């Protein structure tokens, strides 16, 4: 297929253009409010956040995580007003979504999208608008700000969009009294936040049924949802074995294996290129997702596609655990059809001059290679994703 060389050149051109394209767009919203210094250069903000959250596990992190898991909904909701008060007290400067978002984002157990959802809920609360329209515009502005904060994160923008749909598509508009309507919106916003927070536990409940005694599971990448599923299965005394891929470049597999070993689950580490070698022994493949797209495919860490391809060719089921706020109205046709999220790779040795490095951090896995999706809406086949999105957006 020599004809493909055209697209190869195209990639290069795109890559060259990107800085010039992205910098105006990211700085334009309001540079004063943007705490994210370089949203697109070198490394995607999404992966920065993940790196922060996923750094080597310390005991205090575990304690914190434990606390968050135990009292997730309640403590979060109790803390929240305090936080917004703190924000509004600490400086009389106007309320900033980004501050709020960063506050939530700092919590290691909260997904970025949930943080955004909580931040948006806070926007409604602190909004001084006096009409519905004004409120909606304000909300829209806030969500746009959040989205532009990190254009590479699919779940962030999907979460914002879903929140907007969920909150604004109510009968609240019919309320005559604005305050009543606003209260209703706040209520819905918080409800949505709560649902999103509980999503992981729901998925764990649904997903652990698929793990049977004596099975071997291949896990690619570090996903908190997948970990939750495995944790629950382990705590239900299921006996299973995990194969962890190494997860270059950020070694996510190492981290996952550490967590699982702590739970007493037998783990074996593989290098990423050993997937096909090990697939014979594997009974099922578990992956998380950065985003679930309209075709029912997933966007996930680099290497998911090849893992799924190998599994598919050996007739092993591929299960995806993903919260429903990751459902995005995107429809990539191929790998190049994605907004690339870049991630620098450390090869340990200096790279020879003139050699290019593929730094994209994620790939797209088409739906035909996935078996089932575990979501908080239930266990779905890939084709239902589009159904859900249609229900939601149209």
């Amino acid at each position, binding site marked *: 297929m020599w004809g493909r060389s055209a697209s190869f050149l*195209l990639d290069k051109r795109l890559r060259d253009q990107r800085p010039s394209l992205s910098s105006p767009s990211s700085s334009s919203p309001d540079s004063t409010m943007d705490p994210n210094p370089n949203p697109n250069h070198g490394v995607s903000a999404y992966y920065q956040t993940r790196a922060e959250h996923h750094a080597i596990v310390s005991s205090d992190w575990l304690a914190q995580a434990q606390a968050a898991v135990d009292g997730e909904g309640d403590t979060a909701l109790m803390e929240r007003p305090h936080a917004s008060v703190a924000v509004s007290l600490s400086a009389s400067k106007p309320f900033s979504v980004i501050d709020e978002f960063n506050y939530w984002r700092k919590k290691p157990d909260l997904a970025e999208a949930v943080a955004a959802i909580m931040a948006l809920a806070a926007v409604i609360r602190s909004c001084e608008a006096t009409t519905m329209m004004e409120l909606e515009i304000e909300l829209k502005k806030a969500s746009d700000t959040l989205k532009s904060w990190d254009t590479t994160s699919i779940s962030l923008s999907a979460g914002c969009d879903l929140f907007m749909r*969920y909150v604004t598509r109510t009968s609240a508009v019919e309320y005559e009294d604005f305050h009543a309507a606003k209260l209703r919106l706040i209520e819905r916003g918080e409800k949505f936040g709560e649902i999103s927070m509980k999503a992981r536990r729901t998925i764990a409940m649904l997903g652990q049924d698929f793990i049977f005694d004596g099975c071997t599971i291949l896990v690619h990448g570090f996903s908190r949802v997948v970990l939750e599923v495995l944790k629950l299965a382990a705590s239900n005394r299921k006996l299973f074995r995990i194969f962890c891929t190494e997860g270059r470049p950020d070694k996510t597999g190492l981290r996952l294996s550490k967590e699982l070993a702590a739970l007493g689950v037998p783990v074996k580490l593989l290098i990423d290129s050993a997937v096909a070698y090990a697939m014979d022994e594997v009974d099922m493949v578990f992956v998380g997702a950065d985003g679930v797209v309209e075709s029912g495919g997933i966007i996930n860490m680099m290497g998911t596609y090849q893992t799924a391809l190998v599994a598919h060719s050996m007739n092993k089921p591929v299960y995806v655990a993903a919260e429903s706020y990751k459902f995005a109205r995107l429809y990539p046709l191929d790998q190049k059809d994605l907004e690339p999220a870049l991630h620098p790779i450390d090869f340990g040795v200096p790279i020879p001059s003139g050699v290019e490095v593929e730094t994209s951090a994620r790939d797209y896995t088409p739906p035909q290679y996935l078996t089932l999706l575990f979501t908080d809406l239930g266990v779905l086949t890939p084709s239902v994703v589009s159904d859900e999105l249609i229900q939601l957006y149209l």
Partner: protein
Amino acid sequence: MDMRRPPRTVSDPKVRQVGFVTPSVAPPTRSLSDAPTTVAAAAAALSASSPPSGEISLPGSSLSPVMIPPPRHASSDGRPSAPVAVPNPASSLRRDSLRIRVGSYNASEVVLGTPPSASPSSRTDYTASEFSEEAMSPWHGRSGTAKVASSFPGSSSEMIVMKTGVVGGGGAGSTPKSPLTTASVVKTLPGISEKEREVLMGTQNDGAGASKTLKEKTTKAERRALQEAQRAAKAAAKEAGAGVKPSAASGSAVAANTKQGKVVKPPPQKKDGPQIAPPSGTSEKKVVDRPPEKDRKKDVPAPRMQFDDKHRVEKAKRRAVVNQFEAKNRVELFRHLPQYIHGTQLPDLEGKFFQLDPMHPSVYKVGLQYLSGKISGGNARCIAMLLAFREAIRDYSTPPEKALVRDLTAKISSFVSFLIECRPLSISMGNAIKFLKNRIAKLPDAMSESEAKSSLQSDIDRFISEKIVIADKVIIRHAVTKIRDGDVLLTYGLSSVVEMILVYAHEVGKQFRVVIVDSRPKLEGQVLLHRLVAKGLNCTYTHINAISYIMHEVTRVFLGAASVLSNGTVYSRVGTACVAMVANAFRVPVLICCEAYKFHERVQLDSICSNELGDPDAISKVSGRKDLNHLDNWADNENLQLLNLSYDATPSDYVSMIITDYGMLPPSSVPVIVREYRRENLWI
């Protein structure tokens, strides 16, 4: 996360119903679709049956649409005379249908004096006057006119018989005790003797033909036969003992019969079904099945007119306005589709204008344009039709002592059947007609005529602008996001939406190249090529023969569609499937651009059942090549058949994405759109 479907939050999240959920109604069964299963029995019965009378020999009346038509010897001459058939042992299908009529329709035909038409399955065709349901069935629409004009002497009585037939047949589909199920039982029982089968066949046929008028008309011999059969059944039931419930109707009788062995053979020409089917079965059927039957009639699309069914073709021809000559030497597999010699009917039809008084001139004009091929393409045809109807509605005035709602519907129906005669409807047109009829039916009674007319006209305008014009704009907006700089886009034939997409993308400043793939005989791609080159796009033109060569350099394939069916199958200009398959093999994404009003809930697995045949001469003659004259007198050669198909079905596996006015969807989501928005689409 959902606001649309509140009940779902209540339900268990693990169990979710996706796709079509029919509320407890049994899946629609065509009443005689399992007829072929009884072929063996029919063959046995035939030898014992009374000598075939004239009407019996009419072939193939109960063919279900997918059946392979009977061999050519009977119909190859194209003249639908009804030859007295010495039943061909090879064509079991025909024998089957024949047998059925022996059992069920002899009496009714004698009594009512209706022309011997068909078995119940094909008769249902006439009840379902909503032919827009059956968009592609060309003759079907005459029902409207038939009703209005009542030119058909036996039509009303025929209706009655047909209704009872439907009751019997329809009941058979759902209740296990009904006679038709016995037919399938027969098939499953391995050791049953031929004669017993015959008995069963008798019960089946009688059930289907049961009508009150028939009851009194039994002759003595028949009564005796009946009694004997009953006795046999009773004895069989006894022998079967406690294991089989005696009230289990014919089903149990069948089981018993197998054990008993030889049963008294009733003369096959008995006509009095109701009694022979055990009484509980019949009565129950009558009581229980009436209400669902009504629903079913609405739900189940009537079987399409099968053009290998000579009798019905003949009948339809008598009513036809347009005299079209059927083409000779039709291809076996496609004999159920209408095919005409083109070009002969136009002057004839033009001359007939003043005889067709109810036809509005604008409709007439559109019909002629369809006929001559001046208007083609799904959207263009649909818009032309709607505008013609709009004009007709504007000029319409309700005749005295008639209701606008009914009269106008009938009028539209007659227009539509005229258009069908000119060219079979497209699915888009069918949907638009359904929309219009819905609007007419939904007119409030209190509305005055002028108000109603203006409201209908504005509805039509709205349909055109919302469902076609604006939908196209939305599709263009979506599609452009999938075009990147440096892309090589391939398109096939001429699709109005794809053309708009390409032009818009060029206007927006995307840098891309277009490959236009074309095919004989229409060469529509040249039109597209001409327009795009005039706009300054960089184009490559090739024929479909070179598709595998050119696909190497292509990065996206954009295709239009005549319709998208609910299993994701794309129904489009013939050749589309080929392009999509090659693209899929080369891992090039295939994007189908189609407005949502063209979606249809039907499922189609191949391009055979429903299609359109073009002029065979178009493929035999190559313009500008006088030396290629090998096929000049092809029609004289019995062994040569030419096939010029118009459409084909692309399986959803080859489609990466469908771009509609509801966004970009995977083909698996078509049923979702159909389910969620169909009502909205048609009723607005």
